[in-house]
């Protein structure tokens, strides 16, 4: 089941019992953010939240926590809501192989229904904006799919980028924008600013649930997010032409904001409570002038709470960080079994791998650090044997406690690159990185006393199934 817009997905969430409508009057602050924050504190399978009675507003519709549980993430991919995490990641990896799936262009985009242009643009009149965390410098758009093109190659569909970046509303038609240096839009902006030109940009809000997943996914520079969305949906992604920039944007967006990043200009931005569980900000960032807003009648404003994990952000970028790393590692090292990169967008990664020969697991760990995503993340890698499930943290802790001889199995490499937001970096953007090799040494690495492991009995799998049947039958 592929969803073409946010609304149809919200309908499914509601039918599946995974959307909670809050109809009592709430305050814009702190209630909206506190409720979304609380979804991460009430156990597994929290629902999405929908608010339509917000103090002072007459016509606000706000959706939060849309991807904020494993049940909702499964439904976003069209899987049954009780699909285990590891199976969701495996299915994601399986669908990846269908890439690229060409998008389908449609002309009747519902966001063509309403328009504001030029002097008449007033974001506050279209969006019920609100603050998330106490120290945030203002109101943010933090779940947008932002489209930009390579100024040197504007007709290359693959180099057209769709990404999620933090965007602060600093005026009725002005936004402050954070392009992380490792991300594609930063390359687009640098090329434009070197020529003294503005960079056209389209910001799309309230998208279908797979669009949000691919916009936050670390992909190669010339890979199209739309073609990946098609692979993950199992159907071509519907796109339409944005009226001002001519960029390809999702057909089903609630709101499409178009304008330019003004060349060679920076303004104070932030702070903003980030996915690292820490604020970052107080820096001068690029500025966007909004020239046109297109929006559906009665738009739904989708926002995402982030702060101390776990929050919706961790569900949204968990599997979509695991799978690219798995694919990139396996391309060279088919021994790699599974990758768990779900902690802080892969600042820490757990990899299970078979060993080609002694020392091999450490090489896999180093390779993870030099993948495109690894250059900005992967500050810690734990390697575990092929029969250890990296998503099963008690098994990982067993491997660490039983297999690691710290003197030889912990490797620290100084002064590597990491994203500036990493709180432990020193200076910002530079960090040591660590490999913990918790695999069993193999020849010629003959260290330790691992010759007689106690494996599960051959009959155990059969008994596990039998016990589950008996328990189920007992009702």
């Amino acid at each position, binding site marked *: 089941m592929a969803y073409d817009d946010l609304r149809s997905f919200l309908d499914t969430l509601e039918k599946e019992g995974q959307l909670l409508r809050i109809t009592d009057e709430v305050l814009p602050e702190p209630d909206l953010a506190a409720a979304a924050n609380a979804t991460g504190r009430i156990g597994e399978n929290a629902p999405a939240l929908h608010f339509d009675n917000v103090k002072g507003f007459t016509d606000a519709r706000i959706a939060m926590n849309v991807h904020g549980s494993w049940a909702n993430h499964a439904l976003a991919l069209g899987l049954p809501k009780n699909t285990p995490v590891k199976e969701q990641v495996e299915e994601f990896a399986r669908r990846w192989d269908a890439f690229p799936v060409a998008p389908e262009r449609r002309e009747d985009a519902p966001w063509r229904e309403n328009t504001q242009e030029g002097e008449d643009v007033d974001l506050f009149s279209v969006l019920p904006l609100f603050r998330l965390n106490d120290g945030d410098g203002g109101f943010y758009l933090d779940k947008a799919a932002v489209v930009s093109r390579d100024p040197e190659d504007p007709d290359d569909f693959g180099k057209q980028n769709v990404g999620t970046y933090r965007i602060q509303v600093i*005026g009725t038609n002005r936004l402050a924008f954070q392009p992380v240096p490792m991300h594609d839009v930063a390359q687009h902006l640098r090329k434009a600013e070197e020529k003294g030109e503005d960079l056209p940009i389209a910001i799309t809000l309230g998208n279908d649930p797979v669009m949000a997943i691919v916009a936050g996914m670390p992909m190669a520079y010339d890979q199209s997010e739309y073609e990946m969305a098609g692979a993950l949906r199992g159907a071509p992604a519907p796109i339409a032409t944005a009226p001002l920039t001519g960029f390809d944007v999702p057909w089903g967006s609630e709101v499409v904001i178009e304008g330019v990043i003004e060349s060679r200009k920076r303004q104070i931005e932030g702070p903003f409570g980030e996915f690292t569980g820490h604020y970052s900000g107080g820096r001068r960032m690029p500025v966007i002038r909004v020239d046109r807003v297109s929006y559906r009648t009665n738009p739904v404003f989708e926002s995402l709470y982030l702060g101390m994990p776990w929050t919706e952000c961790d569900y949204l970028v968990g599997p979509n960080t695991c799978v690219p790393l798995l694919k990139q590692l396996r391309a060279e090292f088919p021994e790699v079994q599974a990758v768990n990169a779900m902690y802080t967008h892969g600042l820490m990664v757990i990899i299970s791998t078979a060993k080609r020969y002694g020392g091999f697991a450490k090489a896999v760990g180093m390779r993870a650090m030099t993948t495109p995503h690894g250059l900005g993340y992967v500050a810690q890698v734990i390697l575990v044997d092929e029969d250890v499930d990296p998503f099963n943290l008690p098994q990982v802790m067993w491997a660490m406690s039983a297999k690691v001889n710290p003197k030889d199995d912990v490797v620290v490499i100084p002064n590597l690159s990491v994203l500036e937001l990493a709180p432990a970096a020193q200076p910002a953007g530079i960090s040591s990185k660590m490999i913990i090799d918790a695999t069993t040494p193999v020849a010629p690495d003959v260290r330790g006393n691992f010759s007689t492991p106690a494996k599960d009995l051959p009959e155990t799998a059969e008994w596990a199934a039998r016990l589950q049947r008996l328990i189920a039958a007992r009702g």
Partner: protein
Amino acid sequence: MNPLPVECPRCAFEEISLLATSPVPGVWDVVQCGRCLYTWRTIEPARRTRRDAYPDSFKLTAEDIENAIEVPAVPPLLK
């Protein structure tokens, strides 16, 4: 619209402008500091709207704003 606040809770600057007003008249305004761009809704809790209740760790001074680094740095113009 209600009278504008007199100072920024975050940096104490005294030029505050109006960005938005509540669709239901008179319930709240969204206002902004002319120096640090801090933006707040007038009915938010005191810890976000009043200088004397604003957390010290988030306060900014004129020097902080002037000395803030550019991210990303503006690149040199190509000839």
